[in-house]
């Protein structure tokens, strides 16, 4: 809360505040950080159990499997993105602040991405080895997941903002954003597949980068609008 005679915060400071606040909240709660990784770990294990342990088959499917599981993990964490703020009223405070809601929300999204998607991308080589992904694909896997989880988190933020006021909105959120996640999945898994085959993955990575840039520019606007709608409902 600000008193009238105090100079108002600059936009960057306000952004930084949101970022730090949510970053700290996420770091404090081990569950919020560890659960997505555990989910990733366990679901990756389901695939050999379902498909059979044949290493060649698993290796050929590894890019797709890893990417689908990353997408599912991203869906799971997106549901919680604005939930705690909505429940304790801080979302309303953010909406009343003099700064654009889209930028403040972006601070939250950024903290969220670093603690979930980014972390997942960096840890992914471990799970890739479990599926027998050839080593030449590992670097591209990490890079594609870094860019990709950024896209997925931004899209997830839009979905979360739209469904935060709905009880049990988690499943609805998945329904809403899975179609929007398809290009990310296609670009990401294609990049890794190309790298594994020894071909050049740069086209796919560039496309992914362009997607990330576009979403960074547009998604916050949608998130801001959706948050206001959810607050009004």
């Amino acid at each position, binding site marked *: 809360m600000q008193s009238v005679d105090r100079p108002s915060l600059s936009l960057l400071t306000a952004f930084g505040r949101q970022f730090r606040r949510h970053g700290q909240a996420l770091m404090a709660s081990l569950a919020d950080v560890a659960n997505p990784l555990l989910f990733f770990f366990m679901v990756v294990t389901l695939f050999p159990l379902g498909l059979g342990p044949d290493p060649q088959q698993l290796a050929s499917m590894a890019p797709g499997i890893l990417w689908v599981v990353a997408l599912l993990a991203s869906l799971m964490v997106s549901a919680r993105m604005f939930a705690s703020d909505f429940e304790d009223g801080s979302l309303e405070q953010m909406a009343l602040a003099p700064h654009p809601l889209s930028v403040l929300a972006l601070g939250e999204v950024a903290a969220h991405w670093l603690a979930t998607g980014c972390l997942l991308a960096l840890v992914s080589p471990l799970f890739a080895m479990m599926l027998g992904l050839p080593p030449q694909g590992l670097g591209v896997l990490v890079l594609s997941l870094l860019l990709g989880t950024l896209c997925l988190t931004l899209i997830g933020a*839009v979905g979360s903002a*739209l*469904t935060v*006021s*709905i009880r049990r*909105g988690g499943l*609805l959120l998945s*329904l*809403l954003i*899975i*179609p*929007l996640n*398809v*290009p990310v999945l*296609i*670009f990401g898994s*294609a990049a890794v*597949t190309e790298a594994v085959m020894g071909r050049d993955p740069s086209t796919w990575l560039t*496309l992914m980068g362009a*997607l990330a840039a576009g979403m960074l520019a*547009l998604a916050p606007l*949608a998130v801001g*609008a*959706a948050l206001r*709608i*959810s607050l*009004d*409902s």
Partner: protein
Amino acid sequence: MQGMWAFIHKLGSPPWFFGFSGTLVRWLLPVTVLLLAVGAYWGLLVAPPDFRQGNSYRIIYIHVPAAVVALAGYYVMAIAGAISLIWRIKMADVAMRAAAPVGAVLTAVALVTGAIWGKPTWGAWWVWDARITSMLILLFLYLGVVALFEAYENKTAAAKACAVLTLVGTVNIPIIYKSVDWWYSLHQPASLKFTGESAIDASMLYPLLVMIGAFYLLFAMSMLLNMRAELLWQHRNAHWLRQRLDVS
């Protein structure tokens, strides 16, 4: 120009729209039915069979129009949503909600007819080719809008949320279609093309155009009927409505 703005302004007025749409629908229904019948007869019984696919290709006369109009319908929904968000015109809300189920049904028709077409042509009820996969994602997008609307209790907020979702979807549709295209060509050898582009003969093109036109009219009519039912309920206690209904 002045006249056009006046017309658009009138469209936003429920009493005016109610009367206008009533007359329009009365005229549109026989025209649509006629056009559908002519197109279907032409495509089913008059046009010659395809050189490679034989008679099963005749499904194209419903599959392609349904697919084309389903995609266009999403844009209609998006434009209505945008108008509703930007200028806060309630009629645009009604239009957006009216378009959604019509588009969803047409997408489903396109998918089902596509599957039925696939069986005699490629031996399987479902093939993951670029066009059908894109259509499937379009169906998910439509169903998402419907689900979101149902989930909100406050229907004014629901309409705004759906408008935002539809706009987000609209921006993504070209990206989705393109990425599915590239996905398909990445994973399929170039020689195996399920839906190949081949020059279409005039005798087959004309009935197709007729059917596309018929499906556009069908979309418009179904959307207008949905809007009329919705408006009737929204304004059921309004004086102008009671008067109009007692008179007719």
